[in-house]
Each structure stands twice: as C-alpha cells, then as structure tokens.
C-alpha cells in the first residue's frame, strides 16, 4: 500500500469540538456493564471528541486504515477486539505498577517461552515463597523460589494446587449488597458515609475480623485505622490457629514467641503428636523437612538422626519414625510429664498408669535424649493441649537445646493474639447488639467458628456485615455486603514466612474479575481511602525496610529475588519458667475425638479445589471425603465395619461419619479431619465428607470426649485409592495383624531396608543374595541397544527422603494437565494421576511402619508395554524415554495390562474438561490435553527436556558463530522435572545418567541404589535408594521384615 500516514489524515474535524479525556471515557464506561457498556460505547463513538481522543491514544493504528475518514463501522471493527477484551471492566490502562520478572528476561516476549516471576503464597503458618511460570502473561505453574531460606525452592501441596483456585469457575465475580449487584464505587460511598457517622463514637460499633494476618502492610494499615477509630477492634480468627502454642508461650515467657527449629543440628528428635513432616499445616514444613531429611540421606559425614514419635494418629511423621508409640491424645500430656520428670525439667510426676511397653519406651527415650545434650529437639503438636507445649519447652530447656537446636523468635503473625478468646469476645459483642459494622476479611466464620458460639445468629444481630471473599460461601449468605476478592496471584501484598522473612506478593495477572484485596477495604476506613495496594505496600516498606540505599532500586531487587533481606525474626533470648502442668486425665475406656487439619483441604478453604479433593491423603490414601478414623481394635470392639456410618455425640451435638480403619492408631481415639461437609463450597466440594465443625466447640477445640458413638445402620462408600484389605483377617493367626500388601512388597524386593548399624557394616545390603537377582544386561539373543551415547535420561528416588507429602503428585498434575475424574471413578480405580505415592504397611498393624514409594513410569529400557501395542503408539526414544504418542493410540489397553508397575493411565471416558472456559488458561500449553480413549503416563517431563534442548541448540548456534567447534550441551540441573522441583526433601533426582558428574549419576552410583522388579528384566531408568532406619533396639523395631534377622524381633521366616 502506498498510502502514507500523513496523506491519510482526513479526519473531518469539526471546529471547536469539546475535548474528551481518557479519564472521562473511563468514568462513562466504568458505571456500565454488559449491554449498558456497549451502549455507552456506541454513544461515545458518536461523541465528537472521541475520534480525536482515539487518534491521540492510538495514532498510527487508528489512522492507517482509514482512507475514508473514521467511519463508525471501521472503528468498531478495529477497536471491537481490544474493547471486548476489556469487557466488563472499564477500559482502563493498567496503572504504572511495574512487576519485575525473575530470571529469564528476553528482550521481547517470545510466545511459547515462559517467564518466571517471584511472588509468595500467603499462608497462616508462614508464607511459601514461589516462582510462578507465566505463559503469555498468565500464570500456569507454581514452583518454589530457590533463593528463599524458607523453602530453598520447594513447595507443598497447597502451593502447587493454589493455581487452580485462581481459575476456579465458582469464584465470585461480582460484588453485591443484599443480593443485588453493586460496584466498588457504591461500596466506597457507603463506607464514606459510615466513617462520618462513626467518627463521633470513635468507631465503637466497628469491628474487623480477619484471618491470621502475616502481611506487615495489612497489619500496619489495620492498626492505622484503629488509631483513627480508637473504639474499634480488630480480631483475628482461624480454625487452625495455633492457640495452644500461643497460650503456652504466654505461660512460659509472659509474651508471645514461637520456636524455630534447626533440624540439621539435631541427633534425636522427639515428636509429641507433632506432624511436622507431612504438610504446611505445620509451620516451616517445607524447610524443616529438608533439614530433617538431610540427616537421613547419609551422603555426608553427619551421623543419621533418630526420630521418636508418640502420636494419636497415623501420620507420615509417625510412619517413617524410627521408634513409634501410638497413644491417645489425652494421654500424651501425662506421658510427657513423666518424661520431663525423668529428664529433670518440670516437676516429677508419678509413673503410675503407664504400661510396660510405654515404660520401656520412656526409659530408652530418656537415655537417648540425655546422651545428646544440646543436639535434640522435642516438639509438641499444635492440636494438643497448651500444657504439652509447656512441657516440651521445659524438656528442651533441661536438655540444653535452647539456642542450639531451638531458638525462640517472633510469631509469624504480626500481631499475635488469643484468637479463641478474641472471637468469644466478638461474638459476645455481636449478640449484645453493640456492633453496627462488622468487616470480615476473607475466611468463613459461619462454617468454621466453634459451634457453641453460633456465629450465624450473632451475625444476624449486627446491623451490617461486610464479607470480602473469593467465593460466595456460608458466611456470604449472612452478610449484607459481599465484596469479591482476589487470589494472591492477582494481588499486590506481602507476607512473612515461618522464620519471619518477608516477601512481596506480586500479581501475575490483572484481577480476572476485578476483585478487591483486604488492603483496599481497610484503606477505605483510613484517611486515604483511595490508596491502592501497591501504594500501601511501597509506602510501608519505604518506611520500614531495613536496607540502605535507594528505595526504588531496592524494591526492584526485592521483587526480582522474591525476598526482602534482613526481615527474618531475630532470636529472642528467653528461658521458660518452670512449673507443673497437668490436664484432666481421660478415663482409659473413654473414647476421645481429635480434630485435625485435613492434609489436603486444610480447614475447608480448599474444599472446592478439585486437585486437592482428589489428592490422596498421606498414609490413608483416602480421597474426596473425610471419615471417623479409628484403630483396628476399636472398630472390632465396637462392632464397626469400615464404611459403616456412626453417630458421634460430643457434648450434646452429633455428627454422622463413616468409619475408616487406620492402621497404627491408638485405641479409643477417633480422628476427624476438618473442612468437609460443606454445602456452599462450589460445584466440586459440595456434599462431600462430613462437617466436623458441627461438634467442635470452643471449650474443646482439639481434643474432646465422646459421649456416645453408635452405628446408624447406613453405610457410605469411601474412595480409598490403595486397596488395603487384608486377606486372611481374624482367624488366621499368621495374617491376623499383618498387611498382605506390605509383606508382599517386602517379599518382592520392592522395599529394601536395613538398620543404620547394618548399613554401616554392609553398605551393599540392597544387593544381598537374599534379593532377587537382576539379569545381566547382555543375557539376550538380540543385539542390545547402545545407550552409551548422547543424553540418557534417568531418575533416582531416595526412599529415605520421601516423606509422602504429595507435593510431587500435585505438581505433576498441574504440569501435565492431568484431569480430575471424580469420586465415583476413583472408587472404580480410574484415578488419572501419573505419579502416585504407594504406602506399604509392614509389621504389626497395631503399630506398623509404613514405607512410601513414589511410583511413576520407570521408562524401562526393556519396556513390556512397547512390543504389545498393535499400532506402535508407545515407542522408545534414543535417549531412553518411553514415549507415548497420543494421536496414534487407539486404546486397546494392552500396554496397561502389560506394565508391571501399573503406571499407565487410560482415559476411559472424556475426563478432561474441554468446556469450562475459566480453566483453559490454566493448562500448560506445552502438553497435550488428552481426550477419551487415549493412554497416558509420565513422560519424564519431556516438554521440559525439549525446552532445554532447544535452548541449548540455539545457544550452540550462537556460540558456533565465533568458534565452529563450540558445543553447548544441556547441563545438569537445567532439566528439572515437575516432581523433582516440588519435592521439599529433594528425594527425586533427574538428569543425564551418561554424565558422570550429574547428581543422578552419583545417586545411582550409590550402593543402596536398586530398581523395582528388575528381576523380570525391564531395566528401569527410575531407580530407588534403599531405606535405612535407625531404631533404638532397646525398644525394638516394628518393621517386621520377613527373613531379615538383623533387623527385627519376632520376624517371620
């Protein structure tokens, strides 16, 4: 086209047009929505000043095509697309809030090459620092931030699954007042009016109820508001609120403080009902599990640590402990008191009422602890009584651990408080009618508040309730105002990790539905009601940042690195007071119920997250429900079978839940996980599970006595992924209390285990003659393939490091677009996850050991699945990867049958969701979304391998421009599979086994390295590092490995 821009300027400008500004345009459009929006747009087009405005805004674009003046039609054509994208939101340009990408910053965005941005996921026990992968400016995958000390690059299940919440189609997309749609401007006006009214009384009727606030900015904003309204109050409430720990620190130190542990320095760890190895419900889990496991990898000179666990449930911590004692939660405090007496801390307590087994345990434990002064840690569980925390602190003091393996520092929340007491006070005020405005910032108190407080009724006595939340949940129904919130991936904020280190939460995408953050709501009450979160954030850190130099460049660095330096909590030098602690003992035959945070649903906030609903709970392998979990004997004594629905009465309130028998639980103790039984969670979560909050009162929030438990006569099917049924149940003495699966796993050499002493004597124990022999590689008629050249991908999984937390499982699901199939399909066995963590119970099922084996495609060099596919849809690459060609697969499922590891997953029905629009941006664009009738399995993240290969080849081309012989190979560590990247304990190592210096080659070179089922000559590329356990033989070992005389007492031959 020869038209030059200048020649085309024929806009018929009428004289003296009123000038329109962008601000006016915004205003005109902001009030409109839907049809009204388009109508206003049309009106605007006719407006004389608009063309000029357009021309000024988009000069080149708008004019170039208009050789006949700006016609309305052409304008609509051009602008239609971009306006449509602006859509419901006013067509605003993003204000200048620069977000800073982390590592790979190409000069222009290359579609297909992702960028990574550092941010943080706020979490009540401590934020998880993240790097989020952004494809074409939308977040698609969450990874950890390797630079941050709180995680060293790992994540947990909640962080991995949180991205699904961003795109959840059930999210609230609009604000409302009494059910009618309102926008922010209306809310702003309402609060302005309230502020004027409330100024007189100093805000006497104003209350803020938030979740645990770990954001320094938000805390300071709220405190500024409280200064403005001195009679207003702010309460924090979460159902999993660490109240025992907080109350105990007041008793011990007269102030709020939190212990921070240094596991790498501990030789002996005693966990008193503290599940610190299975998930972020324990503060600092990601870092602690790494530090703890570092002393069990046996790749340094440091001796192996020893873990004693006394617990009232079957957790992963207990499963991999060296010595374990199941004990009712109510009995652990007296137990600890006796221990404290033996170690010199606290006052001695009488040693009556404990059994011989417990006595033996205590003596050996005390001896071990005393032998390691200053190198031990005693932890009390958060769902235990405060007295246990006091005892634990006293024991730690007596053992000299304070300052060495434990330091006390500030709590992770900025303003620690007595949360249950505060809530009680708030509800009292609400019921008395004293409150005219209650601002609920996130959370769901109607569902989670203690049932005796009856928060729902209290809300009805408040004049106006405002609820900020991402979902229209139980609390929203009783609130007048609902402000739809933002997910952390779309917000500006900040958050503290477990050790106090602050990081900035930076958005990866503009709020999808124009939601609001707590910062904006609180700001409305302040003197600067229009403060944006970004300004609040920068304002706070400008004042409080402890780094010298120019703020702006510091801020950029903080965004880039993902952490703010010098913000870790300083150690406080505190010594605990002495004094006796005791609790009311529980009768031996009474049954207790223990409330615990759900390992995948937490407190109910993730009920609508399909990945987490379908994530098997560690050790239990239960999905989609909770259950009344009890031991074998308790169920047998009461005559309950698994899946019988029982009615549990606590203090006059009842709940009905199905029985689930969990091996290793103490007798007369029932555990209920919180977070289920909701009716307003969304399409995913509604109707699953049973609401344990219905019997959770503020008097006994964690451990309560069961008044009555009886069968209702109904049953309820539970979706348990691994079939734990015993063959030969009661009656056949040999199998009475053994798991056939676990015994078989040991017999089939899937699990190879030795004690630490034996390992030191015989490092090659994993290849003893006792085990099935691996066929020699060249014992074949055929010419074997030459795998010595090029990259050969392989993986090593350290069984000793796996804590069974499931972070890798969800990471794989997120990375590879794996579908969720729903409870009915899971019950049939059609779970679609490519990676699973198998749990094998061995030994006596009243107190078993459990081994965790992550199982994924082994990429066998001699894969049984390859020769049986009739269409050749599964083949082998020269680099050793067993490929799955989705478009060739016709679905005969012979490969599924022939895989001895059963890692292949088949799309029996159309499991992938092709329809829900909001889930489409979530998917990883580098991985196919599989349709029905197609087989799938782990690919060793071949998309990541190929991305690294492309990068290497491109760089090689550039290098060869100067040096023709230059080579640029993929370096070790450049390809990290999703599972490897997520694992907190670095249990999974992947890389090129032909590279002798790679971590994976070194791992496979270890004497403990073995493959699963290698005797059938599959030659798997995924190998395992055998377990080493360190039981205190004075107590004995509970592994029950058959035939291994050096490891057990009472082993079967």
């Amino acid at each position, binding site marked *: 086209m020869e038209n030059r821009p200048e020649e085309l300027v024929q806009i018929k400008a009428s004289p003296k047009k009123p000038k329109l500004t962008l601000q006016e345009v915004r205003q005109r459009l902001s009030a409109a929505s839907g049809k009204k929006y388009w109508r206003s747009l049309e009106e605007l087009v006719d407006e004389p000043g608009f063309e000029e405005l357009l021309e000024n805004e988009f000069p080149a674009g708008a004019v170039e095509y208009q050789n006949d003046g700006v016609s309305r039609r052409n304008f609509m054509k051009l602008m239609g697309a971009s306006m449509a994208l602006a859509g419901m939101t006013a067509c605003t340009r993003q204000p200048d809030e620069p977000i800073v990408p982390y590592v790979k910053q190409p000069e222009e965005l290359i579609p297909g090459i992702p960028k990574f941005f550092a941010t943080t996921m706020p979490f009540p026990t401590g934020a998880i620092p993240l790097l989020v992968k952004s494809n074409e400016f939308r977040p698609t995958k969450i990874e950890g931030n390797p630079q941050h000390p709180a995680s060293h690059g790992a994540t947990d299940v909640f962080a991995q699954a949180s991205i699904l919440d961003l795109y959840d189609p059930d999210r609230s997309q609009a604000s409302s007042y009494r059910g009618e749609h309102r926008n922010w401007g209306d809310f702003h006006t309402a609060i302005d009016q309230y502020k004027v009214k409330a100024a007189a009384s100093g805000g006497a009727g104003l209350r803020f109820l938030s979740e645990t606030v770990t954001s320094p900015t938000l805390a300071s904003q709220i405190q500024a508001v409280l200064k403005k309204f001195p009679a207003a109050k702010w309460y924090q409430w979460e159902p999993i609120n660490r109240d025992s720990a907080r109350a105990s620190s007041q008793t011990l130190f007269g102030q709020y403080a939190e212990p921070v542990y240094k596991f790498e320095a501990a030789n002996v760890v005693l966990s008193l009902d503290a599940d610190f190895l299975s998930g972020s419900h324990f503060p600092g889990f990601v870092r602690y599990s790494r530090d703890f496991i570092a002393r069990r990898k046996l790749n340094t000179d440091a001796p192996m640590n020893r873990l004693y666990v006394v617990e009232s449930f079957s957790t992963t911590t207990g499963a991999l402990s060296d010595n374990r004692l199941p004990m009712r939660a109510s009995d652990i405090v007296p137990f600890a008191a006796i221990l404290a007496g033996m170690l010199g801390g606290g006052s001695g307590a009488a040693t009556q009422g404990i059994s011989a087994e417990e006595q033996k345990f205590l003596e050996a434990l005390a001896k071990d602890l005393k032998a390691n002064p200053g190198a031990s840690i005693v932890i009390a569980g958060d769902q235990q009584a405060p007295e246990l925390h006091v005892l634990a602190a006293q024991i730690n003091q007596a053992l000299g651990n304070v300052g060495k393996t434990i330091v006390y520092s500030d709590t992770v929340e900025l303003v620690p408080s007595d949360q249950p007491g505060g809530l009680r006070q708030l509800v009292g005020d609400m019921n008395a009618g004293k409150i005219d405005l209650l601002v609920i910032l996130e959370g769901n108190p109607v569902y989670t508040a203690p049932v005796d407080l009856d928060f729902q009724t209290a809300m009805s006595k408040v004049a106006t309730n405002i609820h900020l939340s991402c979902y229209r949940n139980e609390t929203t129904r009783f609130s007048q105002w609902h402000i739809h919130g933002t997910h952390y991936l779309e917000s500006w904020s900040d958050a503290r990790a477990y050790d106090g280190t602050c990081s900035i939460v930076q958005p990866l995408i503009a709020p999808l539905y124009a939601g609001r953050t707590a910062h904006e709501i609180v700001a409305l009450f302040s003197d600067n009601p229009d403060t944006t979160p970004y300004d609040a954030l920068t304002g706070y850190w400008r004042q409080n940042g402890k780094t010298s130099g120019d703020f702006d460049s510091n801020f950029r660095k903080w965004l880039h690195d993902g952490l703010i330096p010098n913000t870790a909590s300083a150690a406080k030098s505190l010594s605990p007071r002495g004094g006796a602690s005791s609790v009311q003992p529980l009768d031996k035959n009474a049954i207790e119920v223990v409330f615990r945070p759900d390992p995948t649903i937490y407190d109910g906030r993730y009920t609508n997250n399909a990945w987490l609903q379908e994530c098997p709970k560690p050790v239990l392998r239960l999905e989609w429900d909770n259950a009344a979990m009890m031991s074998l004997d308790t169920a047998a004594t009461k005559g309950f079978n698994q899946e019988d629905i029982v009615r549990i009465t606590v203090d006059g309130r009842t709940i009905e839940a199905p029985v689930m028998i969990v091996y290793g639980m103490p007798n007369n103790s029932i555990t209920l996980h919180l977070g289920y039984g909701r009716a307003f969670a969304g399409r995913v979560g509604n109707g699953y599970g049973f609401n344990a909050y219905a019997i959770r009162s503020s008097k006994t929030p964690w451990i309560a006595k069961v008044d009555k438990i009886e069968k209702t006569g109904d049953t309820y099917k539970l979706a348990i992924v*691994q*079939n734990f*049924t015993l*063959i030969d149940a009661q009656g056949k003495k040999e199998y009475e209390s053994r798991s*056939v*699966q*676990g015994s*078989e*796993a040991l*017999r*089939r050499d*899937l699990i190879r285990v030795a004690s630490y002493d034996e390992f030191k004597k015989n490092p090659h124990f994993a290849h003893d003659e006792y085990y*099935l022999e691996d066929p020699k590689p060249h014992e074949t008629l055929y010419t074997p393939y030459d795998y010595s050249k090029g990259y050969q991908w392989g993986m090593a999984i350290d069984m000793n490091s796996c804590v069974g937390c499931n972070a890798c499982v969800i990471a794989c699901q997120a990375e590879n677009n794996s579908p969720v199939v729903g409870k009915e*399909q899971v019950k*049939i*066995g*059609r*779970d679609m996850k490519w990676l*699973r963590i*198998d*749990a*094998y119970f061995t030994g006596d099922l009243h107190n078993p050991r459990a081994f965790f*084996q992550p*199982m994924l495609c082994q990429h066998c060099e001699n894969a*049984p699945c390859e*020769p*049986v*596919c*009739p*269409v*050749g849809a599964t083949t082998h690459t020269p680099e050793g990867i067993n490929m799955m060609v989705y478009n*060739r*697969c*016709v*679905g*005969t*499922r*012979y490969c*599924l*049958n*022939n895989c*001895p*590891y*059963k890692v*292949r*997953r*088949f*799309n*029996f*029905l*159309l499991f992938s969701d092709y329809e829900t629009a909001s889930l489409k941006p979530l998917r990883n664009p580098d991985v196919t979304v599989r349709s*029905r*009738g*197609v*087989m799938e399995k782990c690919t060793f993240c071949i998309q990541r391998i190929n991305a690294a290969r492309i990068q290497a080849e491109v760089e090689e081309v550039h290098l060869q421009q100067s040096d023709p012989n230059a080579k640029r190979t993929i370096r070790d560590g450049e390809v990290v599979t999703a599972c490897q990247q997520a694992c907190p304990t670095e249990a999974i190592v992947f890389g090129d086994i032909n590279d002798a210096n790679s971590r994976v080659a070194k791992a496979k070179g270890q004497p403990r390295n073995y493959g*699963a*089922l290698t005797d*059938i000559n599959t030659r798997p590329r995924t190998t395992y590092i055998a377990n080493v356990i360190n039981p205190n033989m004075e107590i004995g070992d509970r592994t029950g490995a058959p035939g291994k005389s050096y490891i057990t007492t009472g082993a079967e031959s």
Partner: protein
Amino acid sequence: MATHGLTDLPPSQRPYLTDPPVIAPGHTFASVTEKIMRTVLTGRTPLGWIGGVLLAFGIVNILMLAFGYLFWKGTGIWGVTQPVGWGFAIVNFVWWIGIGHAGTLISAILLLLKQSWRTSINRAAEAMTLFAVMCAGMFPLVHTGRPWLACYWLFPIPLTMGVWPQFRSPLIWDVFAVSTYFTVSLLFWFTGLIPDLATLRDHAKYRITKTIYGVLAMGWRGSARHWARYETAYLLLAGLSTPLVLSVHTVVSWDFAVSVIPGWHTTIFPPYFVAGAIYSGFAMVLTLMIPIRAAYGMKDFITMRHLQNMAKVMLATGLIVAYGYFMEAFMAWYSGNRFELYTFKNRAFGPMGYFYWFLITCNIALPQLLWLRGFRNSPVLLWIMSIIVNTGMWLERFVIVVTSLHRDFLPSSWGTYKATRWDYATYVGTLGFFTMMFLLFIRVLPMISIFEVRALLPQSRINSLAQENLQ
C-alpha cells in the same frame, strides 16, 4: 429284562450291542433329500422359528444400543479399569473364537481323518463357526478407546502417518489370525454348500427362489467332472483349515502368553487354549444340535452316535484342559517364582476365588459324568452338560483375564473388577446376534449336508457305515 430275543424286536427298538447307527435305517436318497430340504423349501415357516427370530432380533437391538452407548461415551461404561484393563470384552472374544474351532475341526480335521459320521453335523457346525467368529470379531474392535481409528489402523495399510502396524504385538497377529480364519471358513463352508444349493435350485417352486439359489450354486450340474474338481477343492480347503484349528487359538492365547503378567506368561497356553476351544466348541455344537434335531425331527441324521462321539471328544479335551490346570498349579509351585506362587494362591483362595472353584466344578468335576454310558446316552443330560461346559469355559477365560490382572506385581496397584450392566448387555447381545444368525441359517440353507449324508447310505456304495436294512 426282555425275555424274547433281540432280533425279535423291530429295528428301531433294538438295544444296540454296538454303537448306535450313524444314520437311522430305512432311508433312501430321496427321503434324505426330502427331509432336509423340507425345512428350507417350505411354505409354512414354523411359528416357533418366527418367535425365536423375533426374540433374538430383540436382543440384537440391545446389542446395538450397547454399542451405540459405548461409542457415545467410551469404554468407561464397562467395568474395565486400572489394573484390570481387559474384562468381559476380551473374555467374550476368546470364548466366541474358541467356540468356532469345533466347527472347523468337524469340517476339516474329521474329513481328513475320514470320520464320515461328521457329515450330518458339519454344515451346522461350520455355520456356527462363522457366526461365532463374527461375534468374536466385534469385540477387539469395539473394546478399543477409539474404534473409529482402530478399525483401519490395525490393518497393514500404511494410510495415515505412513506407518505400519506394530507387528510384534499379539493383537496384530490376532487380526491376521481371525481374518484368515473367517475367510477360510467362509470359503470352506460355501464350497461345501454348492451341491446342496444346486439341489435347492432344482427343487425350488418359485422363480425367485430358483434364481437366488441358482446364482449361489454357480452352475453346478453334478457332473463327474464337477464332482472331481469339487472333491479336490474340498480337500484342499480342508487342508488349509486344519492348521487353523490349532493356530488361531494359539495366536489368541499369545495375547496372554506373550505378556509378563504372572498367570498369563506361561508356555502351556497354546495347547491348553486349543484344547479348551475344542472343548467349548463341541459343547456349543451339542447345545445347538440337541434342540434342533428334536424340533426339526432330524434325529435320524443326527443320531445318538453323533451325540456320543461329541460327548467323547468333549471328555477327552476336558481332560486335556484339566491337565492344563494341574500343570499351572504345579509349575507355580515348582518354579519357586514368588509372583507365580502368589498369583496361583490368589486365584484359588483370593477374593475372586469362588470363580475358580465354580470353574473347576463346571470344567473338570461335572464333566467326569461323561464317563458314564448312560449319561452319554441321554440327550437331555448331554444338553445340560454342554451348557455347564460352556459356562465353565467362559469362566476359565474370566479367571485367566481378570484374576491375573487384578493382583499382579505391585501390591499397591491391586484392584478389583466389577462388570456393569453394559458388559452384560453386550455379551447377551452377541448371544442374541448369534442365535438370530443361526436361526436365519436354518431357515434359508440346509442345515445338514444333503449330499454328504446321502453318501452314508448303503445305496451309495461308498462306505458301509449305514446299517443294512434288516427286516
């Protein structure tokens, strides 16, 4: 008990001190032709037949519905899952193919072995084979996840993506085996039909009937030259079919034997499956022939001799199958292989153990009754036994497929299998299809080979199997 001598009784009432006759005495060429032809060239279709066809057709509709829903939703409507990736579909496939083998054995192998008693059952048995193979052939196609692609990608036509099928896979061998089997059986059966079609053409009353049979009879005039060529062709085809009896089910057994799964990976499968196929095939022939000979009055041609011979073959193959079971159990122990031993223990004593014991009862225990002459002499009891054997053989495939898969190498993957209504609907649907095809066959084609039975008569002076007409 009888006080008078045996020869005083009329021929039809004499208790035979030797085997019963192959053909009832007193027939001539004309009577044989007439009797057999009457079922085809009759103006009056029996009401029972119409009722039967309508019922079978109704069941075929269920089959169509089952397939329709299957293609609409996917194989997930069945009970297949992880780890049991194959269920009813493959069990039925193997069962139907197995049944087909009896027909070919009767037609081809017994011909080559000069067992002329085969002549009255071979036509129906071969038809049974064809229909059984048709039923069987549906399953490997529809049980795939994407049958619209499987229907041509499994054949060696490098159409899309320029790739051949993967020839190392036993499923491709199945494709060749089953298609070969069907083709050869069809040709063999049709060749055998030609002289009879000509007979029908010659006796047909209506022009349209004459034309249709005439076209199919391919101009057969019954001349000596025709007969000479015919016998050669027939023998050649029999020679081609004979190895198929052994090879087809061997290939099908390799679907299992080639895999690594304990319980599948065993070299006894080829002979064991072939024996089992003949076992179930003969049972199915009995199931079909006993009611039909009664309903259509064909007892003269399908005599007790035939039934007893088939019963004896069943007993023999049943014993081979029993040997197979025993060897599996023995080898599981003798091998010392942990996986094999567990698989066997699980098969017999695990959660699905009752299928195994039901199987042993149906396949080994009860068929021992066939040793009793009195048992073999009773058509009703033989018919019941044939149903039992067919049930047992279905269970055998079920036990092999499902119990081996549901608990294999990794204990964490142990699962279970529960058939859904669509599994049953599909299976019953194929039974309906088979019945419908068979009933149609009986109506439009002579169910007994007319010219071959005529060869049994003494008048034919070909062989002396027929009883002299004792007056």
